[in-house]
């Protein structure tokens, strides 16, 4: 029981708010540090690729955002499942906050991918299996966001969106493999990934740093947005009003000195 107590507390909106207010500043600085290190390393110190020249460096943005686009959907699906089963409201708020962030990562992955594709493949867009399933993932995000926007009653909203998210997550592997198969049927091996040599350590380390940085960035933004959602929903509750007025007093006191 003692182990579960902190967890139980954390899922109540109030403690979640307190907890995230405490870690958000730290998280923000650590994220910034890691992202700057990874970006600097990747853009300036990592060696030039012998085949792709300098333009390969876009992978330091592209690959982490592609990873995050899927990771965010998985987090969203996990939160939705927990919300549907245990009715923990904070999970719904976290999933809500995740959707636009995940969609942005997907968009970034698509955009950087096509920018990279221009010098490499000679075209901005190919109907390649990965690109297509990433595009469909973007549509799934849009669907989730549109359904949430269309429903007004909060009780219905959260559960309906959670069910749709889970329906999507069941379909993601099916879509992925069907698209992969479709692609191999239609245009056999027009793009082989240049017989990809396994990535060298000097490129791998900044890439992993960027991946870590993106994950933290996602967490930072999602927590921030969840806090916003809590404020929006609980604005009438006493604890929040006390909390917010305390905050203003503190900052006023701070500027007064």
């Amino acid at each position: 029981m003692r182990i579960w107590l902190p967890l139980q507390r954390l899922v109540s909106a109030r403690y979640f708010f307190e907890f995230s207010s405490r870690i958000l500043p730290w998280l923000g600085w650590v994220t910034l540090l890691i992202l700057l290190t990874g970006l600097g390393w990747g853009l300036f110190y990592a060696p030039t690729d012998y085949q792709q020249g300098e333009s390969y460096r876009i992978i330091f943005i592209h690959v982490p955002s592609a990873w995050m686009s899927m990771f965010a959907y998985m987090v969203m699906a996990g939160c939705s499942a927990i919300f549907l089963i245990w009715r923990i409201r904070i999970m719904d708020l976290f999933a809500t906050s995740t959707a636009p962030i995940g969609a942005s990562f997907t968009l970034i992955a698509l955009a950087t991918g096509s920018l990279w594709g221009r010098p490499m493949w000679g075209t901005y867009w190919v109907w390649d299996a990965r690109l297509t399933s990433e595009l469909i993932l973007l549509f799934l995000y849009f669907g989730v966001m549109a359904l949430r926007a269309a429903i007004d009653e909060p009780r219905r909203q959260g559960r309906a969106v959670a069910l749709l998210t889970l329906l999507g997550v069941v379909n993601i592997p099916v879509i992925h493999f069907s698209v992969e198969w479709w692609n191999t049927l239609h245009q056999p091996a027009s793009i082989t990934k240049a017989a990809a040599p396994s990535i060298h350590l000097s490129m791998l380390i900044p890439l992993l740093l960027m991946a870590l940085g993106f994950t933290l960035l996602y967490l930072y933004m999602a927590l921030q947005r969840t806090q916003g959602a809590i404020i929006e929903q609980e604005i009438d509750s006493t604890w929040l009003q006390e909390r917010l007025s305390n905050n203003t007093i503190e900052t006023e006191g701070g500027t007064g000195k």
Partner: protein
Amino acid sequence: MTTLNGILIRQLRRELLLAYRRRGDALTPLLFFIIVITLFPLGISPEKVLLQQFGAGALWIAALLASMLSLQRLFTTDHGNGVLEQLLVTPCPLSFLLATKLMAHWLSSGLPLVFLSPLLAEPFGLEWSTYPALVAGLLLGTPVLLIIGAISAALTVGLRGGGLLLTLLTLPLYVPVLIFGTGAVMAVSRGMSAAPHLSLLGAMCLVSLTFGPWLTALALKISLD
């Protein structure tokens, strides 16, 4: 005394009777199917070689859109006149009732489309040998389309702009069915077996038949809560 079977049979009869009385509603998606198919040669090319290449895809895309269009009448009238609430309070499991509803819907809109498809394949110059793959694919694929759509329709029931939202939710989920359905026809026309595609479609059909009515019921309960 009414048994579960009795209720379900009565429910099925009601749905079929309603479909028969509102023949126009069931006919519209079929006409839509035919018109969309007509647009493909006009928009792309009437050349025989090209037609043969994209014919199967055109048929499947039209079937996809037609079955999506027919979804809108799945719950709207029943929602409007309060039948859905009645179904919800019936002591019979909602998923069973919805299964009969979906079956009636498929019989009135999915099955005619399957029968119509060989007729429409002919103007595209698809070879006769591909017809079994086309028909079998549609036979297995249209229930999947219906069930995926029914879950989304249940989620969007009674929402403003629900129809347009429905298309946004369902179309991405339709992708695998489209790929395997077209793939089956293309495989035969290239002298390969359609069996792998059809088995996958069959698997999707079985999975959605198993879980579909239950998920639709869940979605409906959320929406009407």
